[in-house]
C-alpha cells in the first residue's frame, strides 16, 4: 500500500478525485432524488425569505442598470457599429511600429520619463506624508480635534483624481513632466497619510514602554520604539505604490503632464494605429518589469506578507 502525500501545489487534486467519485455516486443520487427530497425537505426548499431578499436585490441592481443605460444613451446599433470599427482598428494595429527609429527613441525616452515621474512622485509623497502620518495617529497625538482635521484633510486630497491634480499643477508650473510628478505626489500624499497613520496606530506598545522606562524622551520613543516597527511596513507600501503609479503615470501625459501618455493620445487621435499598439506594448512591458523588481525588493524587506492597501 502506498501513501500519497499531496503538496500544496497540487491544487487540481481534489477535483480529479471527486471526478472519479462522481462516476459512481452521481447516478445513484440522481436515481434516488425523489426519496432524498422527501427525507430532507428543508434542504431542497431553501429559505423563502432569503430567496425573496436575493431576488429583490438583483431586481434593484438590474433596474438601476437599465435606467443608467437608458440615461447614458446606450444603443445596440451604436455598439454594433463601434465593435465593427474596433475590429477594423485591430487589423490596422499589426505589426506594431513607430514609423522611424528616431520616433522609437523618442517613445523610449518618454517611457523612461513616465517611470521617473512615478518614482519621484511616490517618493516625494512618502516624504511629505511621513510627519503627517504621526499627526493623524491616535496613539502619538492624543488630540482629538487635531486628529480629526488631519484625517479630513487627507480624505479631501484623496477625493481628487491624479489627472485633476495634473491639470491644476500645469497651471502652476507649466506643461511638462514636473507637473506630473507633483500630481502623483498630491494624490498619493492623501493615501500615504492614511496608510502611515494606520500603520503607526497598529504598533506594539511594549517597545515604546521599554524606551520610556529607561528614561527616553518622547522623540526617542518615536525613534527607537515606533520607527523600527513601521519602517518595513512603510517601505512595502511605498514600493507597491511605485508599481501602481507607473500605470497612472502613463495617462497623465494625456493632459500634457509629461510621459508616454502624450504620444499615446496623439497617436490615437491621429489614428496612427501601429504606433498605438507599439506604445501599449511598451507600457505593458514596462509595468511588468517594474512589478517584478518591486515585488522582489518588497519580499526582501518584509517577506511574503500581504500588503494592506
Amino acid at each position, binding site marked *: 500500500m502506498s501513501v500519497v502525500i499531496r503538496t500544496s501545489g497540487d491544487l487540481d487534486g481534489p477535483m480529479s478525485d471527486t471526478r472519479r467519485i462522481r462516476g459512481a455516486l452521481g447516478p445513484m443520487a440522481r436515481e434516488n432524488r425523489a426519496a432524498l427530497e422527501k427525507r430532507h425537505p428543508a434542504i431542497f426548499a431553501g429559505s423563502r425569505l432569503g430567496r425573496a431578499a436575493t431576488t429583490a436585490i438583483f431586481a434593484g441592481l438590474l433596474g438601476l442598470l437599465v435606467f443608467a443605460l437608458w440615461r447614458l444613451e446606450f444603443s445596440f446599433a451604436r455598439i454594433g457599429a463601434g465593435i465593427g470599427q474596433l475590429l477594423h482598428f485591430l487589423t490596422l494595429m499589426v505589426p506594431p511600429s513607430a514609423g522611424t527609429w528616431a520616433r522609437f527613441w523618442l517613445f523610449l525616452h518618454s517611457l523612461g520619463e513616465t517611470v521617473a515621474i512615478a518614482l519621484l512622485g511616490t517618493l516625494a509623497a512618502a516624504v511629505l506624508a511621513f510627519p503627517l502620518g504621526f499627526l493623524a495617529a491616535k496613539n502619538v497625538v492624543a488630540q482629538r480635534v487635531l486628529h480629526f482635521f488631519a484625517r479630513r484633510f487627507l480624505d479631501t486630497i484623496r477625493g481628487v483624481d491624479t489627472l485633476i491634480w495634473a491639470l491644476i499643477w500645469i497651471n502652476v*508650473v507649466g506643461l511638462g513632466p514636473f507637473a506630473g510628478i507633483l500630481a502623483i505626489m498630491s494624490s498619493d500624499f492623501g493615501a500615504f497619510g492614511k496608510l502611515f497613520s494606520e500603520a503607526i496606530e497598529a504598533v506594539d506598545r511594549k517597545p515604546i514602554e521599554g524606551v520610556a522606562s529607561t528614561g527616553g524622551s518622547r522623540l526617542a520613543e518615536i525613534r527607537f520604539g515606533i520607527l523600527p516597527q513601521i519602517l518595513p511596513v512603510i517601505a512595502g507600501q511605498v514600493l507597491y505604490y511605485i508599481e501602481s503609479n507607473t500605470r497612472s503615470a502613463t495617462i497623465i501625459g494625456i493632459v500634457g503632464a509629461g510621459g508616454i501618455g502624450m504620444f499615446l493620445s496623439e497617436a490615437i487621435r491621429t489614428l496612427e494605429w501601429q504606433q498605438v499598439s507599439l506604445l*501599449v506594448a511598451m507600457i505593458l512591458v514596462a509595468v511588468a518589469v517594474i512589478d517584478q523588481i518591486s515585488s522582489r525588493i518588497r519580499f526582501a524587506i518584509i517577506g511574503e506578507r500581504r500588503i494592506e492597501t
Partner: protein
Amino acid sequence: MPTTLPRLPEERLRPLAAAHAAAVREVRVKTLASFAVLAVVVVVAAWFAEVDIVKMASRIGTVGDYVGRIFTFDSGAHVGRPVIVAPGEWMWGLSHWARLIGDTLLIAYAGTLLGAVAAFFLSFMAARNLGRHPMVRVGVKRLLEFCRTVPELVFALIFVIAFGLGPMPGVLALAIHTTGALGKLFSEVVENVDMKPIEGTTATGGSWWQTVRFAVVPQVASNFASYALLRFEINVRGASVMGFVGAGGIGQDLIEAIRKFYYADVSAILVLIILTVMAIDLATERLRHHLIATEARA
C-alpha cells in the same frame, strides 16, 4: 532596593563590545548603501524628468495664488471677493453640475456592474482549484492582466473614436478595466474556498456549473460584493475624469473651466466632486462593514 550590577572583567567585555559594534556597523553599512543606491536612482530620475528645483522654488508662491484665485469671484457683481460671500452666485450652475455628477455616478455604476458580471464568470475559469483546462486558465489570466494594465483612459480614448463621443465609451472603458481588476481579486477569493462543498456537489453528480453555483458561489458571494463596492468607489473617481477625453460625466465641464480659466467654476466643481466622493466612500464603507458582519455570522 538598591542592587549592584555585576560588571564583567575588561578582557571579557572587550570581545563582546567589539562583536556588538561589528553587528551595528554591518546594519549601518547596509542601510547607508541602500540609501546611496536610492539617491543615485532619484538623481537619474530627476534628470530624466527635467526636475528644475530653481524653477520650482521661484514658482512655489503661485500655488497659493492659484488656490486663492479659484476661491475668488473673477467676474459679476462680487468680483474680487471670496466665493463664500455669495454661495448662490458661486454655485450658479448647481442643477446642471448636479445632473452631470449624477451621470458620473451612473457611469461608474454601470461600468462597475458590467465589469463585475464579466469578472464573475471569468474568475471561475481563472481559478486554479476548479479544474478547468490549463490552457483556458492561462488564457483567461493573460486576458485579465491585459484588461487591468492598460489604463481605462486609454480604452476610453480608443472607444471615443470607435463609438463616438458621449458617456457610452466611458462606461465600456470602465467595464473593461473593472473586469481585469476584479477578475484577479475574485479568482484569488475562489482559490481560497473550502474544497469540501465542491467535493460534495461533484459527488452527487453536479455538473461544473452546478458545482460553481451551489458549492462556490455561496462561499464567495459576500467577498465578491465587498470587492465590487470597493471598485465602485475607485470607479467614481475614474468616471470623474472620463470627460477629459470626451467620454461623459462632470469631467468635460471641469476641464473646460480649468482650460478657459473660469476660476470660481473650477473650485465649485471640485468641491462638488470631493463632497460626492466622500459621501460615496462613507456609504460603501458602511455597506462593506455590514457585509463583513454577515460573513462573520455565517
